[in-house]
């Protein structure tokens, strides 16, 4: 079936990007119903901190899971999980149908991805992995459960476990990975999660408007500066030292320096490179994104434990693809909060470090369409010498614009306006809002972690030779250090709000 972008509304029903917006907005609206006293979201299951020996001695689902709000406290925890499964399966299957995916394969795949995700999420909440020796919300689970040892990773344990399980499936159980790959959609899941993060940003404005806007503007400025530095440097090295042709150098430069796969496809389209080039480069980007995701969060946490926002912003500019960046930001968020809590007894509010990582990435996403348009015009005039004959339709900017970003900004602004215009309803609105930006968003993030592992096959690096070498040098010698310096310049001194 043809997939043409002809009208401005083309793709509204059949692209993952638009479906992230629809799904995110739907959950947002469900959450808002709490303003009128209707809790339409509290049924979603939520993992609890549990301890292995206690569970073995006296198994009960209520040790592992609970519903997200007290409205549904009569619902059995296992039934809450099944209800969560059915609702998410139904909504994503509707999306899969309109996206022309194979619905039967999607249902099988989603079922496997969903339950593997929850298994990772629950196991990751075992106290020896997650509990931190500090008081949080009047509880110190580490002491209350009499632990003698623990990794003290906080929520990061679940994220890393999901990632590892996904990677094991993607690299050692390839037939199974193939079977469930129809539903392993990290970009769809993470973009939906990012839309829901718009609520968190709205809440952050209420708590500290100055800090939130400072974070947003610093993210834009840093992304813009980094962007202008990365691209020409990588392009020059690719041409001069690796003897790549113009098309390959341009596509690879965008892939490494901007936003991974999206940027490489957009750039290749802009310069009308043969589609084989972005396909090869994208494979490379995905594999390297996994290295970044595994290496950078623990590295930054240990090297700069007192620069949380700088670390988050640097992550946003270094880790390619929205999925891997948000995943890395989420791991960094959890690891840094746990480390700071363990060391000082003070708990940073979650979401600030993640938002720093997302905000730089979102600005980069927005720039992609504009950059591709500029590049297309430059390419026609200076490389193809076709001035006056070929025209680039301005609609190209719109077709390449990430639509989930519109939903993210819409949710953020709407939530903020509602809160400022009607202060009397803040309490009620927060009931639904907290669950949607908490349990719903985290589930989308967890699905992303597992899915991104499933679709990453390290063996695809074979035969990439020059391109892989340039990518590795570009990323770790040029991009990561420059991104950190730029992040430091624009975010130095910014700290997350302390949780109460």
């Amino acid at each position, binding site marked *: 079936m*043809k*997939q043409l*972008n002809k009208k401005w509304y083309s793709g509204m029903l059949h692209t993952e990007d638009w479906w992230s917006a629809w799904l995110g907005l739907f959950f947002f609206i469900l959450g808002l119903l709490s303003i009128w006293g209707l809790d339409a979201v509290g049924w979603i299951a939520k993992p609890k901190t549990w301890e292995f020996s206690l569970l073995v001695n006296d198994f009960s689902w209520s040790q592992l899971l609970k519903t997200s709000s007290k409205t549904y406290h009569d619902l059995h925890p296992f039934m809450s999980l099944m209800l969560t499964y059915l609702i998410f399966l139904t909504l994503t299957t509707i999306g899969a149908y309109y996206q022309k995916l194979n619905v039967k394969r999607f249902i099988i795949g989603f079922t496997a991805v969903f339950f593997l995700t929850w298994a990772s999420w629950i196991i990751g909440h075992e106290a020896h992995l997650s509990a931190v020796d500090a008081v949080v919300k009047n509880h110190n689970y580490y002491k209350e459960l009499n632990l003698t040892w623990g990794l003290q990773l906080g929520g990061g344990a679940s994220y890393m476990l999901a990632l590892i399980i996904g990677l094991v499936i993607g690299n050692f159980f390839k037939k199974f990975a193939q079977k469930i790959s129809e539903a392993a959609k*990290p970009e769809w899941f993470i973009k939906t999660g990012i839309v829901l993060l718009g609520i968190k940003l709205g809440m952050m404005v209420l708590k500290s408007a100055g800090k939130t806007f400072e974070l947003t503007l610093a993210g834009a400025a840093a992304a813009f500066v980094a962007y202008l530095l990365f691209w020409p440097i990588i392009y020059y090295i690719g041409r001069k030292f690796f003897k790549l042709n113009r098309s390959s150098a341009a596509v690879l430069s965008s892939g490494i320096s901007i936003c991974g796969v999206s940027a490489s*496809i957009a750039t290749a389209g802009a310069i009308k490179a043969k589609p084989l080039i972005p396909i090869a480069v994208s494979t490379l980007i995905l594999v390297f994104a996994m290295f970044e995701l595994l290496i950078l969060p623990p590295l930054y946490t240990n090297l700069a434990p007192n620069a949380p926002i700088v670390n988050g912003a640097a992550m946003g500019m270094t880790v390619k693809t929205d999925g891997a960046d948000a995943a890395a930001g989420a791991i960094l968020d959890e690891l840094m909060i746990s480390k700071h809590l363990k060391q000082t007894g003070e708990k940073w509010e979650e979401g600030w470090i993640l938002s720093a990582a997302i905000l730089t990435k979102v600005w980069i996403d927005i720039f992609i369409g504009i950059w591709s348009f500029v590049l297309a015009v430059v390419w026609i005039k200076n490389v193809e010498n076709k001035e006056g004959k070929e025209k680039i339709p301005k609609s*190209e900017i719109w077709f390449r614009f990430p639509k989930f970003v519109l939903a993210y900004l819409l949710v953020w602004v709407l939530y903020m306006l509602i809160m400022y215009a009607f202060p009397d309803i803040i309490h009620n609105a927060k009931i639904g809002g907290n669950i949607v930006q908490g349990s719903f968003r985290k589930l989308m993030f967890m699905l992303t972690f597992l899915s991104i592992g499933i679709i990453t096959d390290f063996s695809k690096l074979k035969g990439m030779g020059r391109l892989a070498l340039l990518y590795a040098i570009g990323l770790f010698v040029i991009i990561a250090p420059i991104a950190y310096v730029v992040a430091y310049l624009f975010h130095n001194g910014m700290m997350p709000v302390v949780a109460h």
Partner: protein
Amino acid sequence: MQIDLTLSFDQFKWICYHKKARFEADSLEDLDLQIKKYLSDTTNSKRVEARFLFDFDKFPTWMRQYMPHYFNKNIIYNL
């Protein structure tokens, strides 16, 4: 006169087609030449604006979630 064409690819070849004709070439420049010749032979118009719409369905499924658009382009042929 305006004409809409679908653009696609197969391994190393660019493919372009509409209801009545299909073209294949190794480069977009060669494709342009073929189309220009075809239009000269089949229309009386002196100026034809061709709108090329890329069929993204030919991209691997796993890649579509990252970016749902390759490129569209318009070319004015003065015949």
